């Protein structure tokens, strides 16, 4: 979304000149999203929040040099990813002594948490489940596009993979979702009327 990018470039420029309100606004726009993104790596709410807060502290402290950042949004996500990797590298050795942290799968937003266009709650639940069951990387790519409105190229540079991979993964994710949706519609009584109208489609459903 170009207007979204324009917004963050503008905010970065304001922050560079020391505008605290702009910083607050940037925080409001991205804190939650970045914490969610960090949780994908840390699997722990606490350290995800710490990492994100630290990034914001750093942004303010290095504000005079923000203009050197070409793609602010991509920068935010890559910073979080790197911080998570650093943390997990530091963590690896000591997990033996400390009791394991409970794994919170809170990357999944609660269903009532979203801007709701979905009338069919059951379908939404099924699709949420299908997304949750995707392989980790595919799920992450899908969510970066869906929740953050990223383009394939942006996802590629955040995750350090090729655009082609991103597009393939997206296609596979969409395919799974389409399958879940068709399976659901196949059993849904409301869809039965529609199904009779297009009998040729039925055989396709069942394949």
């Amino acid at each position, binding site marked *: 979304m170009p207007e979204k990018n324009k917004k963050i470039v503008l905010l970065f420029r304001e922050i560079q000149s020391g505008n605290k309100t702009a910083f607050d606004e940037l925080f409001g726009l991205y804190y939650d999203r970045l914490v969610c993104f960090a949780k994908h790596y840390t699997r722990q709410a606490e350290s995800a929040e*710490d990492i994100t807060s630290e990034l914001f502290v*750093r942004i*303010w402290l290095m504000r005079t040099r923000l203009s050197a950042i070409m793609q602010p949004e991509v920068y935010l996500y890559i910073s979080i990813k790197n911080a998570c990797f650093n943390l997990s590298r530091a963590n690896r050795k000591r997990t*033996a002594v400390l009791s394991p942290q409970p794994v919170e799968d809170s990357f999944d937003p609660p269903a009532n948490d979203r801007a709701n266009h979905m009338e069919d709650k059951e379908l939404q639940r099924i699709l949420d489940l299908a997304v949750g069951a995707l392989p980790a990387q595919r799920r992450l790519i899908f969510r970066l596009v869906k929740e953050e409105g990223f383009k394939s190229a942006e996802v590629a540079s955040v995750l350090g993979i090729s655009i082609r991979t991103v597009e393939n993964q997206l296609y596979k*994710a969409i395919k799974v979702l389409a399958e879940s949706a068709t399976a659901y519609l196949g059993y849904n009584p409301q869809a039965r009327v529609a199904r009779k109208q297009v009998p040729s489609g039925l055989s396709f459903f069942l394949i």
Partner: protein
Amino acid sequence: MNKEKFLRLLSEKFSGTINADKLRSFDRAVAGNGEYGRLYSRLWPYLGSRRHVQPRKAQLDRVWEQIEMAEKQEFSGKYDYSQPRSLRAGLLMLSKIAAILFLSGAVCFFGYTYLHSNAARLPERVAAGNETVACTLDDGTRVWLNRNSVIRFNDAFGKNRREISLEGEAYFDVVHSQRIPLVVHAGSIDIEVKGTAFNVSSYGNSAPVQVALIRGSVKVTHTKGVRAAVLLKPNEKLVASGGRGQSVFSVSALKPEVLLREIGWTADTLVFHKEKLRDLAVRLEKKYGVEIQIRSEELKEKRFSGTITTETIQQVLEALKVSYPLTYTVRNRLVIIDALQ
């Protein structure tokens, strides 16, 4: 258009990379094919729905607080990215090592009076004698006390305040609470935390106070003289030395291996000799922070001998199983031991 092609276009439309030509043929497919049309009308609202972004006032305030602290204290070492890192990091490390060498040699003086005045306000007390003690405070915070160490803390811990004073060495695993910060008074410093794990050693006047942080973040302030505050990050260790209003903080990054040694004593050796399983279970519960239920009365009276140092609870149970026919199940933090039928 076959289904694969349709889904490819849908996925391109979703990621916003679809071009005008493809979009036209996609729209035609949606309009012309009943199945595709239905699928699109069901899936698209889902793909377009975003999560609500929650306003996070508290976190924003905390970030500003951290910024203020970093700016005021010139504690900018870790935030300062203005120089090429390689040379700088080397110099920084050298100066840190120098500081540690210097400080660890220094003998310091602690405000005993401070501790004593605290004792009146903090009625609850846990002391460790010849062995380490693990205890869980009312709010769920876990504390491992090293030998000959004492903590005092306020009653109704966690209701309105969480204050602990420490003499000796202890490892804290603090339960997260944004509302009620936990404060540890050790020697001449106060350590304020929200939810973290860290090790504090504060042996009276024989050594400087040392704080090693495992995870989360803590704020360390001096109680006397200059009210210097330092924010510690995971894998950092702070050494506070000096008395009589003089305060010197030095912060160093720790390698995880070193950190392990720092808190190694919490995983202290558990030696048992011909001990009944019912008694052993109590000690294991303490050591591993689990609840152990023994289903068989007969089994409770069986005696075991052994030494446990760094083994996991799983390994311990496995070892018990080898030496006596029993079964166990682990469910979260509940361990159920039963005799083999």
